[in-house]
């Protein structure tokens, strides 16, 4: 149902502000199973808020990787169901 996905996405987006980062990552990973781009959005939010300015933006990179994995898993599962 689309409204459940919307609520899940909103929770994942605001999670970096309210809960420990490792729990926010878990929530984002769960949400990415339904809406893969959420992983990129959450990773970006972490780096936009907390990136110290030196070193790699690990959460953006993790978000892109997570979104890519979620996208391919999502597509693979869907293909199998359709075929």
């Amino acid at each position, binding site marked *: 149902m689309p409204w459940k996905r919307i609520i899940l996405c909103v929770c994942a987006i*605001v999670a*970096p*502000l*309210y*809960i*420990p*980062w*490792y729990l926010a990552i878990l929530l984002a990973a769960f949400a990415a199973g339904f809406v893969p*781009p959420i992983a*990129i*959005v959450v990773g*970006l939010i*972490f780096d*936009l*808020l*907390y*990136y*110290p*300015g030196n*070193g790699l933006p690990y*959460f953006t990179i993790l978000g892109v990787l997570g979104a890519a994995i979620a996208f391919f898993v999502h597509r693979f599962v869907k293909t199998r169901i*359709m075929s």
Partner: protein
Amino acid sequence: MRTQYLRRHNDTRRVFILGACAVVAVLVLGVRFFTPNFFFALMAPLLHSSSSVTASVGDAVSGLTDSSQLAAQNRALEDQVLALRNQNQALTTRTQDLTKLLGGTREGSGSITAGVLARPPESPYDTLVVAAGSKNAVVAGSEVFAQGGIPIGTVEHVGADTSQVSLFSLPGRTTSGWVGENRIALTLTGAGAGAFTATLSKDSSVSVGDLVYLPGPGAIPMGTVARVDTDPSSPTEVIHVQPSVNLFSITWVVIGNTAP
């Protein structure tokens, strides 16, 4: 035929959504890096609400504890506060006496007290977001102190109303310090969440429980040696430092007017 049409239609929609997300991401990144004040001005109310919610949840959870246990804990803490206050007073008097005797420098009063909006574990990079910025005369590079005057980091970015503090315990960050009664010089390497490691020679005679000091001003105790790892084949030992400040519950900091 219908399945192929649906598959093409869904692929087109998916590409469009990804493209729109990429455009939004580029716009947000642009705002963050080219106009950081505007970005943090937008996020400050959310960060304030986050601190309020965290405090409310903490109060609600603590209310579930047995009241007699809380009362006993409260009495023990009051006794401890009284003892520490007396000790502090005695040390302050002694410092004043020594300053009069030996002469001392007059310290500037340009320090700024700031509330903490975001802290570990919400903040993943060992950074703090504090509610003081350029409007409060905060300057990038200033040293930041926790309760008790313990240095914990430096100001990294300054916005109009908020600032970002990079902690000394940021993984990979190195800071000079001392350990033990003999003030053995060492280089502390951040290990995250307020912890540090350092490598010393085996004959340094550092043991568990020794105090570790950071500069600023003088030598300020910031933690204790929690573990010493030795390897028979190595001439060095690795010490693990446990901080005396609990960064997970820090609520306010003092920002100095000088860099470390």
